[in-house]
């Protein structure tokens, strides 16, 4: 007698999805987002393994090789100090990631705390907070950053402050509007009625429920921070020589546009690809978090 083969009879379990399968499925659903994730990963690898990947010392000037065009010895050519551009771009990933992550995380986390607190406490606290945010938001990002940089001076740590501060009110504004809705939920009343403190309610009960807008702002800030740093360094007000930083490498690049076009081209390409990757990745995060945009 033969029994029909049905699932229960066979002693083979359904095949477990391995990491690769997950990856392939994600790549099919979110091709752009996956590409962005890969770019971010690549930059992270460049930053972590820079000493092993870079063929030359990024700081070592070698005046024999000034402005050498790209060849087999110097893959991307050399700058006006004879420094290898390829090595400087690899090391520049460290600066970009440090600034991108630190500014985005600190800026948006502070914004999250302020935004949720503003929505939770309401009343005069909220009113004053919102007016202060209005003031900060009325300044274009670059103008605010320039004003702050002129107070603190140049250098990588000061630039990070100048980039982080304008992010805080932007995130706080977005988070607040979501937190206003969460505040009205019964579970917040419940938490209050069993006597939890304000801090606990803000961080344990409301903050986790506004993660979607928070993460969207966070990922958007990463690319923006890298761009702002590049702009400030290009103006000579950001990271200072000899630190390898992409924006700094573009400084004076238009002077070389004719004689040594590789000097402005490669660092700019590095910035574009990095920000491109962060933005694609951020978009995928937003799509995943916003059910209305999720495609069927």
């Amino acid at each position, binding site marked *: 007698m033969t029994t029909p083969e049905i699932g229960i009879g066979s002693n083979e379990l359904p095949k477990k999805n391995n990491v690769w399968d997950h990856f392939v499925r994600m790549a099919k659903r979110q091709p*752009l987002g996956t590409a962005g994730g890969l770019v971010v990963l690549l930059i992270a690898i460049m930053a972590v393994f820079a000493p092993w990947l870079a063929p030359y010392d990024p700081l070592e000037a070698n005046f024999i090789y000034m402005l050498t065009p790209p060849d087999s010895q110097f893959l991307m050519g050399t700058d006006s100090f004879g420094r290898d551009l390829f090595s400087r771009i690899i090391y520049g990933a460290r600066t970009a990631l440090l600034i991108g992550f630190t500014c985005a995380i600190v800026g948006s986390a502070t914004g999250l705390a302020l935004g949720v607190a503003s929505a939770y406490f309401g009343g005069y606290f909220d009113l004053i907070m919102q007016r202060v945010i*209005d003031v900060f938001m009325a300044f274009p990002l670059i103008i605010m950053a320039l004003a*702050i940089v002129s107070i603190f001076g140049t250098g990588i740590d000061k630039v990070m402050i100048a980039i982080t501060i304008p992010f805080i009110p932007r995130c706080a504004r977005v988070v607040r509007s979501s937190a206003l809705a969460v505040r009205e939920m019964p579970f917040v009343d419940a938490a209050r009625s069993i006597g939890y403190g304000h801090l606990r309610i803000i961080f344990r009960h409301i903050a986790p429920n506004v993660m979607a807008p928070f993460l969207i702002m966070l990922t958007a800030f990463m690319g923006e921070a890298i761009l702002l740093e*590049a702009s400030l360094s290009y103006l000579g007000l950001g990271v200072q020589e000899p630190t390898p930083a992409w924006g700094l490498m573009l400084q004076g690049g238009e002077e070389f546009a004719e004689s040594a076009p590789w000097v402005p081209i490669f660092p700019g390409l590095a*910035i*574009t690809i990095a920000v*491109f990757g962060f933005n694609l990745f951020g978009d995928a995060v937003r799509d995943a978090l916003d059910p*209305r945009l999720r495609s069927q």
Partner: protein
Amino acid sequence: MYSYIVKRLLMLLPTLIGAAILIFILLRLVPGDVCDLKFGGEGSYADPEQIRQCQDRLGISNPFYIQFWDYMVGFFTLDLGVSMWTNQPVGYEIAIRFELSLQVAIMATLTSVVIALPLGVISAAKQNTMVDYVVRAFSIAGIAMPSFWLGILIILGLLITTQAWFGRSWMPPIIYTPIWVDPVANLSQLIWPALATGYRYSAVATRMTRSAMLEVLREDYVRTARAKGLMEKVIVNKHALKNAMLPVVTIIGIEFAFLMGGLVVTEQVFNLNGLGKLFVAAVSQSDYTLTQALVMLVVTIFVLMNFLVDMLYAWLDPRIRYS
């Protein structure tokens, strides 16, 4: 409606005063003032007496509250004072550059609209197809590319192509000519920065158009239009686009406001003598009067633009107007 407009206008005052206070404090926190920089810059010997006289003359040695009071009185009577660095009236310093910045901002906004609207609509109508991916990649690239780098690339491209075609390289003119004096010279200078920034800002508007269109295309009335057998082209261009325009108008208005003051880096690349470059110079020279006036100009344009956009929104959408 009128009381609403008046109320909204009054609401702008705290923001403006707040911005004035903020920039006033920020500037005073910067180490060294304009007199230190003028007489003691570059490590040269500075006569303390000379610096003190300069500070007295400019009123920097006055207590902060008196300086702030003078500044506020000046702001509300539209008397912007004299630049501490050049001794020219601030109004004059701004006026000679305002035209250039305004023209670049208008041209860049137009560029961005011309790119953004068709691309956004196509991208939404063909969601999740190859066309959509290409458009999205194109617009994200616009956000990712530093506009000053795009500027450098444009200059490089001009040099190479003119060299190849005409045998000698050509660069955009550096001296600004008003458009009514010589339109060709004017446009050949300003079209490039307008393209570089316009592309960047089009990216944001394209994405906004796309997501607004996607939302509208899922509305019931669009389904009705399809059900009654209208052509897809008519549905998209006539029925959906009109309603999707609202958020796009907002974003374009706000971008325009930012373009008026935010072209700091692009002006550097193209060597344009506009408001952005003036701002960088004013900040680095600790020129309090000029920096304060410039910031207040940018902030005022920004809040007024926001206000106008809100009003336009209410005017375009009856649901907002009557609620």
